[in-house]
């Protein structure tokens, strides 16, 4: 399993890559493996301000369904529309083409509570 050092992570298995005031969010390699074959991703419509921990979308795998939570407070400004036709890319490339949403961060200070790759690995026992 792969957990890039340049990303931050949540206990709920999302990753976040900060780019100035914006950030890209997805689910971790561990999460996609646990979910199994992902068939459908349901993402909130862009524009709504969300608090850290709010649901920004739902993943449907063959076996199960799982919510995704905002790592920090922010507004969804774009969703990965390519997932509509090919949700399986979340399994094959969770940190690249399998990204979920792009957000505008409203409270940068919250990022401090996110996990480093090392902390996240410890959390999942990897």
């Amino acid at each position, binding site marked *: 399993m792969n957990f890039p050092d340049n990303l931050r992570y949540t206990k709920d298995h999302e990753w976040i890559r900060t780019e100035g005031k914006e950030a890209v969010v997805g689910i971790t390699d561990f999460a996609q493996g646990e979910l199994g074959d992902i068939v459908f991703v349901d993402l909130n419509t862009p524009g709504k301000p969300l608090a850290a921990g709010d649901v920004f979308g739902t993943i449907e795998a*063959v*076996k199960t*369904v799982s919510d995704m939570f905002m790592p920090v407070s922010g507004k969804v400004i774009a969703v990965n529309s390519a997932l509509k036709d090919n949700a399986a890319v979340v399994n094959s490339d969770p940190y690249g083409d399998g990204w979920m949403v792009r957000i505008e961060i409203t409270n940068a200070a919250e990022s401090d509570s996110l996990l480093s790759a090392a902390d996240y690995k410890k959390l999942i026992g990897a």
Partner: protein
Amino acid sequence: METIEETLKQTALTEVHTRLGAKMVPFAGYLMPVQYEGITAEHQTVRNGIGVFDVSHMGEFIFKGPNALDLIQRTTSNDASRLFVGKVQYSCIPNEQGGIVDDLLVYRVEENVYMLVVNASNMEKDWNWFMKNNTKGVEMHNISDKTTLLAVQGPKAVDVLQPLTDMDLKSMEYYTFQKGKFAGVDNVLVSATGYTGAGGFEIYFETVSSQKIWDAVFESGKPFRIKPVGLGARDTLRLEMGFCLYGNDIDDTTSPLEAGLGWITKFTKDFTAKNILLQQKEKGVSRKLVGFEMIDRGIPRQHYEITDKEGNIIGEVTSGTQSPSLQKAIGMGYVKTEYSKENTEIFIRVRNNLLKAVVVKIPFYRK
């Protein structure tokens, strides 16, 4: 501290599964492989080639003696008197309210010897139920712990298994079985049954031979790219066929007639709750188990509400998944009888959205 694994039973092949990279999960008190390479790939393996499930968690009871048939007749809904030696029957155990204690397979192994194959999650409940009803001294044995069950399923099953035995598998009819030598092991029961709709066999044998038979099957299956398959794909395969899963689609509160199991409910003999069920048959039932396909995008899951167009609840989803063969979301659930006709538009409440679906005929998947 006690870990979950310590309280779970293992099958004789648990180590093999782990070595093959299976994701192991607790299921009905056992640690079982839910998937190896992935549910979709494993599903296709069974539909198009051949796959092997370790389903040793299933329970096997042996009933012996001149009154064995009488006990089975009184406690199950199908007519076991029609079984000849070498014939299997799908049946269910009704409770006194007309609900279902369990669904099961009944094998007539010898003139006065039957094997009943029950769900792992119900093994104790079933055993106590039969004990309570065993008023005429039938000899009962629970051989589950010393029995391994492999389901070898898929269109290539005959090609792979026939070289391992003299029993004629090619001409073995659906829902019949033979007992004999298999892969050098005596007393192996090979049954033309399964829970996938893909064809194939279920093989019962003593646990001591587990590794030997597993290895022989995989060696013979190599040219056919045989693969192990987990319980995840077993669920998607059975759901595509519209087969009921106990605990999802049927339980203590659902009647066989509501569940579409009228075909295994025979009123030509006496059995538990016969009168209640007969009345249901004559008057009709108020709800029915139906299959449906999603029209709007979304996947139905167990316990989701089924509604009419206005959002009024008309039933509940009992099983649902994305069908790997059909590439669409399918489900089963109970609806008020007036909504059970084919092509009826129904709605599934998925995360507070009402998504459109349509009642369809089962099986969902046809070859």
